[in-house]
């Protein structure tokens, strides 16, 4: 590998948790997050051949976001019948000491999940990953003005859901 370009193993070892966290915030559950990370790392392996050293986590966030959006598009083409919602089955009861904090996290995650995919992606890339509007624009292939709009509307919807 050229200087500054990590190996696949180094990416998985050193940035896997970052990838997983972004995947979880986008997908909203462990199972889908695992699939997203698996597919993202396959793309990372291919992409490392042409990767130019820079913001590695920004690059990884773009990859996992694209995997997520590809999956969203695939599901839209082949919609599945959703099972009846039963929050008791989806969210295991919290037994952690910081139960209140965990409950709040779950509430925020549920609110994130309720956002339209495009808004959620923009909010996660901005507020979880910390990408700039330009980086989000580039990652998603949309104008910066659209990024602004999606982030703002996403936050407003989140606020409504949480209040």
């Amino acid at each position: 590998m050229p200087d500054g370009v990590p190996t696949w193993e180094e990416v998985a070892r050193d940035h896997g948790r970052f990838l997983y966290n972004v995947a979880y915030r986008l997908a909203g559950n462990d199972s889908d997050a695992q699939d997203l990370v698996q597919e993202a790392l396959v793309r990372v392996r291919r992409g490392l051949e042409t990767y130019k050293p820079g913001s590695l986590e920004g690059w990884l966030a773009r990859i996992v976001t694209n995997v997520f959006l590809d999956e969203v598009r695939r599901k839209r083409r082949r919609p599945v019948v959703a099972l009846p919602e039963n929050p008791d089955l989806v969210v295991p009861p919290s037994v952690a000491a910081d139960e209140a904090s965990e409950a709040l996290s779950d509430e925020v995650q549920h609110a994130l999940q309720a956002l339209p995919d495009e808004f959620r992606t923009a909010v996660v890339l901005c507020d979880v990953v910390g990408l700039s509007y330009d980086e989000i624009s580039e990652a998603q292939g949309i104008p910066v003005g659209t990024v602004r709009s999606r982030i703002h509307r996403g936050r407003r919807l989140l606020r409504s859901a949480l209040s």
Partner: protein
Amino acid sequence: MTTDVPATPELPEELLSAYLDDECDADERAAVEARLTTDAEWRAILDEITETRAVVRALPQREPPAGFFERLDPRPWSKTARWISGFAAVAAVAAGFMLAAPSSSHDDVTPPIAALADSHGATQSLATDPISALAPLAVATPSTP
């Protein structure tokens, strides 16, 4: 006579998020700050999105299950291969069950020919000729003149 007053360009509300994230240019920033001084609704919205952003930023790092990365395989075909190997495993188990399960013996379902023959023979030996056992028909005998 009327004078034309230049209209103040309408500021889109989404500028508030850009302002909060320091993603405005100087003109936009000045315009937002001017609006905030006079518009209580904008100030309230700014407070709300500031709080919302803080809540999302405070989300804890989500951890993958133990051993997740050790199990990862970077090969593109690994997912398909897992499906194939999973299917093969299920098929093998199913085949094993079919072989191990007590198979239904043909003797159990084939009529016991020998026993039936014996039974039939015994019946035959006890009974009279079935034709002869029929009730005799009343047959008119020709009368002699």
